[in-house]
């Protein structure tokens, strides 16, 4: 049964079941679709286990002023192609799961409104510089292990949780030195935009380096030398060409390019 051909291609309801609720929701969808503006959403589809090459599938999707790219992808996934592989969670630019290339630029799908893209065609692809899992989902293992390698925690002998100790106080100026870098949500957009990461697969990357700076610049931390030794390697901090694209694409306003330059100051000896 395909009620007037309204159901998406490949979606068929069993002929022995009459489902008024499903058909009415489908009609509602068609109604919304016809009453609102539409865009063509081109989604990159590729399954490394099955497909020979990447292919773009185009879908017509209704949108409102507030519709995000993630909403549009989920709309397609619900109504047109259930097989689309996409990672998402919070839908509010907090979890860092839905990073992808939207119209050629790395962005968070949940944080990018279709109306802001100013285009009738929206093309979504998986992030660059990450191993592809399927369609729009990429593997974060390397980024997370690099992040872990930077020792992303305060290193010091004593602890503010020990009896008789107080919290480690900081002045607003002390906090100002690193606070923006603690906004990183590990979405990987900076690594995706980094031109060095495209050719140098072992480069630490802006995410890891920005996190190294976050702790090096924290005056409560005593692990500076340890971290500087980790990033001072042939594929470490010195391979950054200061293209600055990492800072341009960060959805949380972190400036990894600046963090990298400041870190270099520690290594060159003009910052203590």
């Amino acid at each position: 049964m395909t009620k007037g051909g309204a159901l998406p291609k490949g979606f068929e309801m069993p002929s022995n079941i009459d489902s008024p609720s499903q058909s009415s929701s489908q009609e509602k969808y068609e109604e919304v679709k016809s009453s609102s503006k539409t865009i063509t959403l081109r989604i990159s589809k590729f399954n490394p286990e099955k497909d020979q090459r990447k292919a773009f599938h185009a879908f017509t999707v209704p949108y409102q002023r507030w519709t995000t790219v993630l909403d549009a992808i989920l709309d397609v996934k619900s109504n047109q192609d259930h097989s689309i592989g996409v990672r998402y969670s919070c839908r509010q630019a907090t979890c860092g799961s839905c990073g992808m290339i939207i119209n050629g630029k790395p962005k968070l799908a949940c944080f990018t409104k279709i109306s802001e893209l100013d285009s009738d065609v929206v093309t979504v692809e998986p992030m660059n510089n990450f191993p592809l899992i399927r369609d729009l989902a990429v593997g974060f293992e390397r980024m997370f292990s690099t992040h872990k390698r930077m020792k992303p925690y305060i290193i010091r002998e004593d602890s503010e949780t020990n009896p008789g100790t107080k919290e480690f106080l900081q002045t607003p100026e002390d906090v100002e030195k690193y606070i923006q870098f603690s906004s990183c949500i590990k979405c990987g957009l900076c690594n995706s935009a980094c031109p060095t990461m495209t050719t140098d697969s072992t480069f630490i990357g802006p995410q890891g380096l920005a996190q190294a700076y976050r702790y090096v610049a924290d005056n409560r931390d005593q692990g500076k030398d340890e971290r500087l030794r980790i990033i001072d390697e042939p594929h470490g901090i010195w391979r950054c060409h200061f293209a600055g694209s990492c800072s341009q694409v960060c959805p949380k306003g972190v400036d990894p390019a600046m963090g990298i330059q400041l870190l270099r100051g520690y290594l060159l000896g003009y910052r203590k």
Partner: protein
Amino acid sequence: MSNIMRESHIMKIHYLTALVAVGFVIIHIMIRFTHGSFANSLEFESVIANYKSIPYAIVLEAMLILISVHGFNGLRIILLELKQGNAYENAVTYGCLAAMIALIAYGSRTIIMASMGMVEA
């Protein structure tokens, strides 16, 4: 080189050689403008005369070393970014080091021979 020195030390040398080389190139150009005719500076006798001037030979030797060190380290960096792997990286690093030493040795030989009057027209 990365096995011998920390990358930050290599990069300090890289930046320093670039800055000092610019200084020496400026001195070299200034000498060319102030000593003798600029138009005749590439004539064989003029070139040999330059080498025979010890301060000028030192400027040339310094430029040779600075530019070789900077250039071959730059080449090493470019090659390391193009491809990764232990064997490849060691080959690139030691290959660049060997090429740098060979070029400096060959260039120094020319400077020394010319300044000692061992090159004749």
